[in-house]
């Protein structure tokens, strides 16, 4: 199954949803569902994202998310078949 659910803790600041959703869009990762809510700490929000990998590796999605300064931590909710995909990038002419 290529759908995974990740829980992302982010800084509760303006624009943070755009940072996360923009990353998914520009790297061609598919979001199936996305829920944002508060945590007990008013400075931190929680996003629960269902990502449909479609050829991307979960490792790479998490690594790219983790580069966002506003992302504090990422956890996979239900451990799926998290395995690195060898050479996922298709050939192309550029």
């Amino acid at each position, binding site marked *: 199954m290529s759908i995974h659910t990740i829980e992302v803790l*982010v*800084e509760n600041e*303006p*624009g943070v949803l*755009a*940072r996360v959703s*923009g990353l998914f869009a*520009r790297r061609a990762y598919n979001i199936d569902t996305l829920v944002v809510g508060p945590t007990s700490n008013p400075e931190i929000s929680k996003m629960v994202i269902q990502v449909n990998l479609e050829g991307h*590796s979960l*490792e*790479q999605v998490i*690594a*790219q998310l*983790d*580069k*966002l*300064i*506003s*992302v*504090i*931590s990422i956890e996979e909710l239900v451990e799926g078949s998290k395995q*690195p*995909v*060898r*050479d*996922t*990038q*298709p*050939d*192309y*002419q*550029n």
Partner: protein
Amino acid sequence: MARAHVPTANGTTMNGATSLVKSLEAANVDVMFGLPGGAILPAYDPIFDSTIRHILVRHEQGAGHAATGYAQVTGRAGVCIATSGPGATNLVTPLMDAGMDSVPLVAITGQVPSAAIGTDAFQEADIRGITMPFTKHNFLVTKADDIPRAIAEAFHIATTGRPGPVLVDIAKDALQTQTTFNWPSKVELAGYNPRITPDSQSISDAAALIAQSKKPVFYVGGGVIKANASRELAQLVELLGAPVVTTLMARGAFPDSHPLHLGMPGMHGTVAAVTALQKADLLITLGARFDDRVTGKLSTFAVNAKIIHADIDPAEIHKNKFADVPVIGDLRETITALIPALKSALAKNQPDLAPWNASMQKLKKTYPLGYTLPEDGSLSPQAVIERIGKISGTDTIFTSGVGQHQMWASQFISYEHPRTWLNSGGAGTMGYGVPAAMGAKVGAPDSTVWAIDGDGCFQMTNQELVTCALNNIPIKVAIINNESLGMVRQWQTLFYEGRYSNTSLESKRVPNFPMLAESMGCVGLSCERPEDLDATIEKAMSINDQPVVVDFRVHRDAMVWPMVAAGTSNDEIMIARATAPDWDSQEL
């Protein structure tokens, strides 16, 4: 923060604009490139009194690339400043460029007053939204009290980990409001903890893999220069005695004169460098990212090689190419740790690299970089670039635009030192050359700085020569004038049956480059005949109190070789049109 610096201004009341300038001073900024306008205007009043040198550019794009040139030469953050709306959007290209090439850059932009944000106010643009995809991070500051922390965090983020551009957008009212200045003594970000020290297990795994390898090659990228790890790299290479390739961003990371250096890999790499990667059984990847310009058709790239991938950015691991041994951390620390680990691994098992080295040296000797002189006796662009390199010497800093002249400058100039070759590698930004040279000269005023530019590139950003002339920044510019968008024309020659759609610039007729240069306060020279080449370069070298522009009017049809056509395999490298290397005579 790298340097603890408590400014004496701490606790003083001032407006946000002064707080911004005090923050930049506290961040040890010595120069910034910019151009004022309405929203940033409050900041320009305290800039007038600051110890920071502000260089007034003619276009904000020039400010951005100049800041990049400064950063690439010094290793420190480059700083540029612009107003809201079009001022800020003119920084978009340099920010994207800096993001692609991991350049530490801090861009300050004015924003319309916070009450006006979202109203389509005069000169309003959502520059934070616009730059989100390619900045390492960005800020929108709407309160004066938040300015010092945002600036401190911006410099911390830009210069640590994998370097990158950071934008700080500040609303005009935040600059105008009174605040108590408070420079943070340290920066802590919950979501930002770059891994600096590599895991010791990964180091010993890497050493073990190297000691088992019979055909290893060092695949060296720009990260080695960013990490100031050239000296350590040289020790590691000497220890193993394996061949080295340096990517476009890594030219100068390892001396070209070293016998183990096979040159640049990739689309216009040497036969030896490209083949070394293809035939290796191990790539020791140091601060490189398996860019498509290096790998060619990915599924056919280095198919028999195991991969060690050392990088400070975990997201580069497995991005394009699976890594058997990832090593995440600062490259200088990584290489420093790898040297003793490899020593003990080699003590147990010393592989014989002689056959591999011999075949690579044979390739290097059989297929050196070269070019043929135009049959009509006109000036060869490669010869111009080669002679500039020879005459000006290896301490010179070179910048380039993007295209054929860039590839020739990477091929026919010998680079011996890091931070002497500046170009736009990932982004491929035409127009980078002149403003980057300006910034480089400001960062290294005692070095000779040559911009090797194309006639197309030069016409995009040459207005900064006015800035150079007025601010005593005597750069030298070589326009390799083939009156064409040369690289596009080369592709049209090779892939579009010579149908030269919109690539003829006619720049031997218009503009008159020497006159244009003179009008901007520079010395304008011209050279058309091979017999005048050395004398013209020497004339340019003799002028050190003014910028110099030389219009080298070169043959139009010269092409960049070798070439791996886009989308094809590195195995299909061509050394000239329709000419492949003679593989049958090679033992690999």
